[in-house]
């Protein structure tokens, strides 16, 4: 087994669904030892979410759960019960990191807040990830991915520069759970900052992560533009937003769509060459980035007319040959068939019960010395109870008793 970049870190996960589990997954994928705690009754609700093989729901066959929890071990534990809390403290004694996504104050009410855990293990890094963070007027509010994406202005700007009628085109969320996945990446990054601080000081700390903030981080240019612009500036409505960037990114062709972004003079020259140097593109209105922003609507209609008579892949190939930033809009079928990703061995077969090995996304970046590895499949509910708890000195008899009492 190759050494992982993070294989000296031990993480306890008290979290469910997407954001928290994805955070610990990306760390487990780099070698960290992750123990996932699930509630003894039904476990992580992600087990109830599909897709499932043949669309037949089953708690051990959720592809979402299996993807998010590979490389982890799993135990069941009811932390609300006093004995459960004791076992939880035992687990944290030699852990490096706790990732928890419970409502603010819940763990503290059980005597398991950061201050309690710090006296137990001063080196422990605790990352608390919730929609709105640990303090403030909305801290106890509920929010799912839809809410976080829409609350952070990302929805207001999707579809990007394609809104023509705000009345019939509401703010739009991205496919899947993008705010949740992003919160996972961002929390893992913040944890690594705390790990480096611990290298210097030997001390842990508490991270207060708010999903609305990790999402708003994506529209960071909006802040200075808002504070710096005139009161009648371009950011006020979704329609006038277009003035800021000029053209949309996604364009219809004869047989599909392409994404084009031709902002610089160099890109504009490449686009001209792609279109066969039409006369209209030589107009001095378009000879600077600012001019093209100002007259985006003229460009849009002429470019659309041309694209409607050309095929997607031809436009992509010819555009790239001219160094124009242009890519086809691919369906998942097409992505899976893309030779490039096969050559990079991006998709990795992962075992899903009754479906067999299923190709799922693998390493999002390749590290030359510590390659991504798939060490173990996601745990079945409570799969590692005996292994993990015996490591804490819990005997077989006690294990049975704890199970009977619903602690594990």
């Amino acid at each position, binding site marked *: 087994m190759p050494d992982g970049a993070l294989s000296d870190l031990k993480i306890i996960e008290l979290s469910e669904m997407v954001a928290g589990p994805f955070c610990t997954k990306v760390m487990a994928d780099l070698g960290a030892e992750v123990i996932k705690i699930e509630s003894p009754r039904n476990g992580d609700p992600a087990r109830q979410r*599909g897709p499932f093989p043949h669309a037949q729901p089953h708690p051990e066959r959720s592809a979402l759960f299996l993807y998010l929890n590979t490389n982890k071990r799993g135990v069941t534990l009811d932390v609300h019960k006093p004995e459960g809390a004791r076992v939880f403290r035992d687990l944290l004694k030699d852990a490096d990191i706790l990732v928890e996504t419970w409502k603010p104050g819940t763990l503290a009410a059980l005597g398991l807040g950061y201050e309690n855990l710090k006296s137990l293990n001063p080196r422990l890094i605790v990352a608390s990830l919730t929609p709105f963070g640990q303090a403030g007027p909305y801290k106890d509010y*509920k929010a799912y991915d*839809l809410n976080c994406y829409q609350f952070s202005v990302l929805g207001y700007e999707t579809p990007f520069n394609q809104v023509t009628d705000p009345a019939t085109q509401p703010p739009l969320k991205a496919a899947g759970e993008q705010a949740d996945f992003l919160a996972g990446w961002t929390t893992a990054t913040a944890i690594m900052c705390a790990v480096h*601080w611990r290298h210097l000081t030997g001390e842990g700390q508490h*991270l207060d992560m708010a999903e609305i903030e990790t999402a708003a981080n994506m529209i960071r240019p909006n802040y200075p533009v*808002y504070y710096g612009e005139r009161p009648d500036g371009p950011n*006020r409505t979704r329609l006038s937003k277009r003035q800021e960037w000029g053209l949309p990114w996604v364009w219809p062709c004869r047989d599909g769509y392409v994404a084009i972004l031709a902002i610089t003079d160099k890109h504009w020259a490449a686009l001209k060459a792609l279109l066969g140097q039409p006369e209209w593109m030589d107009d001095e209105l378009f000879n600077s980035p600012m001019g093209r922003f100002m007259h985006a609507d003229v460009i849009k209609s002429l470019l659309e007319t041309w694209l409607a008579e050309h095929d997607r892949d031809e436009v992509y190939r010819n555009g790239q040959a001219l160094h124009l930033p242009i*890519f086809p809009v691919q369906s998942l079928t097409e992505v899976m068939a893309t030779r490039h990703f096969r050559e990079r061995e991006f998709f990795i077969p992962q075992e899903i019960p009754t479906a067999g090995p*299923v190709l799922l996304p693998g390493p999002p970046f390749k590290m030359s010395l510590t390659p991504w590895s798939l060490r173990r499949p996601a745990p079945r509910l409570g799969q590692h109870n005996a292994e993990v708890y015996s490591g804490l000195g819990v005997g077989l008899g006690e294990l049975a008793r704890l199970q009977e009492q619903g602690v594990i």
Partner: protein
Amino acid sequence: MTRLPLEGIRVADFGWILAVPHATAWLGVMGAEVIKIESMQRLDLIRLLSQLPDRPFDLDGSMYFNSLNFGKKSVTLNLGHPQGVALAKEIIRHSDIVTENFTVGNMKKWGLSYDELCQIKPDLIMLSGTPLGQFGSESQCVGWGPHTQAYAGMCHLTGYPNGAPSGLGGTWPDFMIGVVMAYAVLSALHYRRRTGKGQYIDLAMAEVVMSMLPEGFADYNMNGHDRNRRGNRDDLMVPHNVYRCAGNDQWAAIAVNNEDEWRALCQTLEHAEWLVDSRFKDQPSRKAHEEILDALVESWTLQRSPTEVMYSLQAVGMAATPVLNTEGLCTDPQFQQRNYTVAIDHPVTGAIPAAGIPGLYSALPKEDLQYTAAPRLGQHNDEVLGGLLGLSAAEIARLKEEQVVC
């Protein structure tokens, strides 16, 4: 004085535009010395965008650039000149990390490939971020972050039902990928602290996007189901949408995940009869009648502002939030109480609030983090070339004259 996590770590940063600059902003704020290597020949294009209104154009006056490059130094080296490359190598000799997001092959062309740089700095960590990665049949393709989401399947899956595929808000996925780049570098640095070994990171932006679409790929590979666009709707949750509210272009996002939330919705909207309506008796039935249900919910939200919708529904334990626009974001009390923005005084633009680095760290108060003003173009030439590399003032003057430093 608080010690910062990356004190003593130096980054030679060739990154430009958005993704890598966002990654190195994290590193700089966390205490690394980030030396941004740029030049007039190869200007970071973001310096051209978003100037303050009613001011003369200034390469140091871009609010956009300044809100993304705080905590860094700027050195201007002409990489088209052999001496420029030699100076870049000298900076790398004194650095721990190199970051770059040029088209594949550019660093090699300049003699700055990872293999060559390891000759002068054996434990170097280097990250290259490109649309499709360093190898593979399409790796030469040029593109920006927003294109990679098209190639990765994200745009195909995002959009209104029966509508066109859509680009995502902001400049997704650039900033998101910047976070992942910072994570990759911090992980490699952790490994180096343990083993003394550096390594190379090949990051493909499209693959980061794909790692966040597991359900679509699983559904296709298990069931042959090629998903399409579904607006704001969810596989299971219902109602799950944005609803028009009172006012112009005002919206609220509401998601109902379980029976408790459904009962709370019916009671708050004063439609207890929905609880016994056979069309809505369980989640699959409600899913089958989603259009009708959405219209009923919207007839309630239309009478209220987005914040009223939030207060009413959150009070009964439901996930309901306004859809914020930029103004809402900048005035919302939750964001304000978290002090997410930082106002760093800048000699050209003044102290305009910018988004900080997400998260509050109990041991790292925000005021102690390295939020220094974004550098003016070449601001640190003398400091880095003279101080770090030990060149004399006369040598630096000569390099400027010969357009090596410019």
